[in-house]
């Protein structure tokens, strides 16, 4: 797999309008983000040969958005595995570029779930063996994992709250973040419990928004206006669809997808300068930090308490403010990548992490169901 490392780069990354965007639809959001991402690197829509998209915005995702943008691709991939779809798309784009199938790929996502008052989970057909028990989807699945982690490892609600508070501290430095008002551990703990042990403020936002990523080959990247952010490693897997079918609720597929990405990149967790992991819920973050090798299994809670994941700390994590405070339009995976690219380029202003050369992004979809990892680096 190592031969795939550094053969493609992200040269464009952009958000659409975020937050509450009642006047735009999901295709407008994606097209606007795509234009921004192409414009910044100097590539044209006619350069796009491969299209990638995912999510509940369409029945045939790439078909629909490509028609809207009048793109007739030679490579198309609607791999839709939840929040981690876009990290998986990056891996697939690298493979296609390395195989010589195309040079330039466009990944897009958009959602108006806030303005529609809908959640993607509400469209998922309920399973006969789980539905009768009324588990709120997907929150209840994460609550079951959190309770198991607490019981096995002594993880506390305070430790989970630290994830939400640190995200808010980062969001305060991000002008695009949805929630920027102060947040304390006590406020998280005093927020209403929805499904124990998770509180309302352990849960991600519900916003509108879209994003786009442009990936191109090594040769074409040299002609782009932006600094190439090299794709060093990728990995993907999924382990179950139903939370009752998960083997061990304290171990996610990030262990597998992360291992593959590290192997492809030829680096270890200690060489990562900046981490963006999926924060659908606070517990999701702890599980990924453990599974991606930043701490031992069971130590995620103590890790976030001791390592200082807030701005100025020694472990820059979810520097945009994450899905907990920056935005979360249904699927968050593409925004992990956008933030990592901007950090590596040094475009992040007040929240800029100094001298960051490598970043790891990990998406997670469903109920801890799918995991995809991307490791990025600059020259």
């Amino acid at each position, binding site marked *: 797999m190592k031969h795939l490392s550094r053969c493609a780069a992200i040269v464009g990354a952009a958000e659409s309008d975020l937050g509450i965007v009642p006047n735009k639809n999901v295709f407008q959001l994606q097209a606007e983000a795509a234009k921004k991402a192409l414009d910044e690197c100097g590539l044209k829509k006619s350069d796009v040969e491969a299209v990638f998209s995912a999510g509940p915005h369409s029945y045939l995702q790439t078909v629909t958005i490509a028609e809207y943008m009048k793109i007739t691709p030679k490579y198309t991939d609607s791999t839709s595995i939840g929040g981690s779809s876009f990290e998986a798309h990056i891996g697939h784009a690298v493979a296609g570029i390395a195989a010589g199938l195309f040079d330039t790929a466009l990944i897009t996502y958009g959602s108006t779930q806030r303005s529609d008052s809908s959640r993607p989970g509400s469209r998922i057909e309920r399973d006969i063996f789980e539905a009768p028990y009324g588990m709120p989807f997907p929150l209840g699945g994460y609550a079951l994992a959190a309770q198991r982690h607490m*019981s096995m490892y002594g993880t506390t609600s305070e430790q989970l709250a630290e994830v939400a508070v640190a995200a808010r501290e980062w969001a305060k430095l991000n002008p695009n973040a949805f929630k920027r008002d102060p947040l304390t551990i006590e406020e998280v703990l005093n927020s209403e419990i929805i499904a*124990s042990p998770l509180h309302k403020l352990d849960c991600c936002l519900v916003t509108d928004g879209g994003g786009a990523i442009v990936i191109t080959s090594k040769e074409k990247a040299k002609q782009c206006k932006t600094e190439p952010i090299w794709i060093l490693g990728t990995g993907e897997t999924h382990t179950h669809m139903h939370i009752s*079918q998960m083997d061990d609720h304290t171990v996610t597929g990030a262990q597998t997808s992360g291992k593959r990405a590290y192997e492809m990149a030829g680096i270890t967790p200690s060489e990562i300068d900046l981490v963006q992991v999926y924060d659908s819920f606070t517990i999701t973050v702890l599980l990924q930090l453990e599974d991606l090798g930043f701490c031992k299994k069971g130590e995620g809670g103590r890790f976030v308490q001791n390592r200082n994941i807030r701005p100025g700390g020694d472990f820059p994590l979810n520097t945009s403010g994450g899905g907990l405070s920056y935005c979360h339009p249904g699927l968050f995976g593409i925004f992990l990548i956008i933030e990592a690219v901007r950090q590596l380029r040094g475009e992040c202003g007040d929240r800029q992490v100094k001298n960051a050369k490598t970043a790891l992004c990990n998406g997670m979809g469903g109920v801890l169901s799918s995991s995809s990892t991307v490791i990025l680096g600059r020259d």
Partner: protein
Amino acid sequence: MNYPSITHLLNDENKPYFEATKDQKLVIQYCSVCHTHQFYPRVLCMNCFSDAVQWVEASGKGKLYSYSVVKKTFIPEYKDKVPYIVALIDLEEGVRLMSHMVDIDEGDLFVGMEVSVVFREQIGEYKLPQFVPAK
């Protein structure tokens, strides 16, 4: 308490499980080739991929793997039921299923506790398997 009908989700593969609840029996699949149980039911044994799967009655005993007390829900039919305890149960046959814990206060729940099945609540023409602390 009435639970929303599951009739529209029934098919030949899952129906025997619910039919058995009418007799207060918990049934799961057993593979006579590799001698393992599986749940939920599938057309083949997904351990050895043989088609030698058959329904057998489970003991109804197991351990609480994890739980969550649902205090607020956006599922309309469950709004009047809160709080209720969603649980994952590891049956002694080696399969895991979702259920409810009943007859227990939140503070007395603990992961690993011994539990056993009860059939009290009606779900359409069937009974809903739930679990109580083992006597």
